[in-house]
């Protein structure tokens, strides 16, 4: 049941490698994402029935927390694959990428999904490290896909900074292993999370503390926590838009998942206060740094990237606050952010297609020109800013509740102030974009000089009509996906569906035990 989750995206990547037929590899990618999403929902069902337990010594392992992550990853990669077909199709037809890069994109996309799915599925923490490093390697190639100056620079920064960061995470992993070997009387140590959990109370606290600090710094780099976030705005702004959505919506969460797994061990060994202080330190600095930088951004994608840093900070704060509300709020926020942020990247991609820029000052009146996308996008911005009645309001409210019940008034005050700045920053930039008076320039004519791979002849007559119909169809599909995402955000703001609530409660129980 668990292994096919990895094998299906791998098979889809192979299809992309082997065939040059665009329809075939596009379908293969979407179908593979749909298949893993279906399996993830079945797994969630089984997890709710209490059916998912670890085999002792098994390499592949999934508890409710893993299943929750898998659901987030698969659903978002499905949505993004549908959007990719539209976005990358347009990029191909406008000649921004060539046929080879287009195919290459889908191959890497599938590999990227595979490495991300591997992260929550493995029991061995060193293998989890390999999977996280694998996501960096694959996604760096995707960030640099356009081979322009900026994208190569962003990809370079991304791979160097994240690899350095993650090196410290592996050192931390080794140190935790050493602690376990000391606890078992100098014999073989353990790297399996389940084994480490069982022996956590007997681990040497000083060793675990050093290991956990290295882990938080290391995976924190990848999760975009300030002050080690510097790669994030560049990579998010220069990557192809669907990849920005994946990076922001789920890759950051995968890295944070790595922190969570170790934090559970650290809690059992050191107690909540140490974990709390680490999380507060990184969380509050992320929120503050992001809020300041959001005031000076003029590029919508960079602005969204800084917003991701802010939201990762919120997740870290909720996680640090702990207690019955904190862990629940952190996971709920992961879910909300994984929907809201990709949605906004999708909208930004649509705006770029229409206005050919995402500089916030050069675009205005999106709602007038594109009523549906504009409305969805404006709702998305309100959601990201934490306004009711959207999902993030609930999770942020729960976080505040957790902070208040823990008596962390200073953290709460700083967060509220920074949250106000974020609200202002988002609305100032995006408000003008969506609501401004003058409508953007009329859409360009469909370019007849469609650049297509050499083996496909130039379209003529009826062929152009067919192409237009195809383009409209894939636009419609991704539009439906965006509406579904906006709808989900709205629904989550009003009530949390039973199964999701139970899955998050179970996962929070694993963290908080």
């Amino acid at each position, binding site marked *: 049941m668990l292994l096919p989750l990895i094998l299906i995206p791998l098979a889809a990547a192979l299809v992309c490698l082997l065939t040059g037929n665009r329809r075939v590899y596009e379908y293969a990618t979407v179908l593979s994402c749909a298949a893993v999403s279906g399996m993830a929902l079945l797994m969630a069902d089984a997890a709710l029935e209490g059916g998912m337990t670890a085999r002792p010594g098994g390499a592949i392992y999934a508890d409710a927390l893993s299943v929750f992550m898998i659901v987030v990853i698969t659903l978002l990669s499905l949505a993004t694959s549908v959007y990719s077909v539209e976005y990358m199709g347009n990029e191909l037809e406008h000649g921004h990428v060539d046929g080879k890069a287009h195919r290459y994109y889908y191959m890497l996309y599938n590999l990227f999904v595979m490495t991300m799915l591997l992260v929550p599925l493995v029991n061995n923490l060193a293998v989890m490290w390999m999977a996280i490093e694998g996501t960096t390697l694959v996604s760096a190639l995707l960030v640099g896909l356009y081979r322009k100056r900026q994208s190569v*620079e962003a990809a370079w920064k991304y791979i160097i900074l994240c*690899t350095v960061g993650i090196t410290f995470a592996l*050192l931390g992993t*080794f140190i935790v*292993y050493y602690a376990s070997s000391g606890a078992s009387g100098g014999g073989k140590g353990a790297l399996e999370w389940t084994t480490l959990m069982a022996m956590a109370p007997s681990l040497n606290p000083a060793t675990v503390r050093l290991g956990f600090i290295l882990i938080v710094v290391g995976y924190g780099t990848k999760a975009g926590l300030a002050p080690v976030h510097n790669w994030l705005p560049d990579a998010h702004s220069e990557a192809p838009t669907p990849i920005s959505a994946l990076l922001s919506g789920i890759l950051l969460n995968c890295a944070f998942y790595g922190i969570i797994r170790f934090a559970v061990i650290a809690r059992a060994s050191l107690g909540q206060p140490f974990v709390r202080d680490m999380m507060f330190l990184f969380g509050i600095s992320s929120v503050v740094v992001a809020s300041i930088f959001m005031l000076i951004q003029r590029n919508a994608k960079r602005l969204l990237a800084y917003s991701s840093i802010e939201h990762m900070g919120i997740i870290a704060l909720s996680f640090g606050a702990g207690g019955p509300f904190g862990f629940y709020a952190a996971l709920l926020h992961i879910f909300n952010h994984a929907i809201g942020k990709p949605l906004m990247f999708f909208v930004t991609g649509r705006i770029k297609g229409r206005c050919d820029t995402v500089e916030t000052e050069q675009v205005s009146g999106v709602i007038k020109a594109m009523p549906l996308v504009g409305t969805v996008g404006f709702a998305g911005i309100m959601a990201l800013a934490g306004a009711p009645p959207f999902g993030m309001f609930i999770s942020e409210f729960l976080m505040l509740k957790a902070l208040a019940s823990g008596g962390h008034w200073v953290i709460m005050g700083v967060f509220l102030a920074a949250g106000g700045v974020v609200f202002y920053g988002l609305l100032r930039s995006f408000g003008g974009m969506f609501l401004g008076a003058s409508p953007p320039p009329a859409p360009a004519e469909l370019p007849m000089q469609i650049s297509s791979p050499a083996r496909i002849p130039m379209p003529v007559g009826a062929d152009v009509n067919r192409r237009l119909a195809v383009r409209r169809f894939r636009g419609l599909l991704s539009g439906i996906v965006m509406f579904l995402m906006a709808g989900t955000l709205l629904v989550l703001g009003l009530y949390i569906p039973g199964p999701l609530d139970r899955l998050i409660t179970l996962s929070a129980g694993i963290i908080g035990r």
Partner: protein
Amino acid sequence: MPKEWVVVYSITDFITVGMLLTVVAMNSLKRMESFLRAYTINSILLAALMAVSAFYLDAAHLYIAAAVTLASKGVAIPLLLRKVVRSLKITHEAEPNINTPLSLVISSVLVVIVYSSLSKGIFIEGFTENTLKVSISIILISLFIMITRKKAVTQVIGLLLMENGLFLAGFSLTYGMSTIIELGVVFDVLMGAIILGVFLSQIKKTFIDLDLDKLTTLKG
């Protein structure tokens, strides 16, 4: 204490200090080929350390680890990087931000800091105590080199040296992980080196030069 342990002590110390020296030497080198040679020596010493420990600990899986380390870090990655460096036609590192004497001083200060802060006896004892300190010194000095040097190739070599330091640390803490993990991590490092090589040639193509000073179009 049996006599052979004394031998192990001195041999492992000898090898690890050799690794430290190759990294410190990076501070005073200018030619790209010398950087590569320093990295190669460093990797071969790492493999040698694993082989020696395999002999004394009588652990077969460490021989495999040593062979894999030698093949990947000692042979494959240096050859790959040499090919990239030659095709890019860069021979020398630009004048670093910090001059050679000062960077040598900073490197030694880093070693002193590591030795004094880790000697509080947080956790490690036995014959790998020195190894751990040396490995953390290697990680920090490599990081320092990455920060102060300007050419992208040097950054890659600094990163790879850092990973050697990490392997050394991992080795001293665990006496070698299981073979599968060793292989997986080496595979990741190898893929990383290949991808960095790809990006090096792309930077060369798009920026004409490999000076990282020019990689400043993205700010804020």
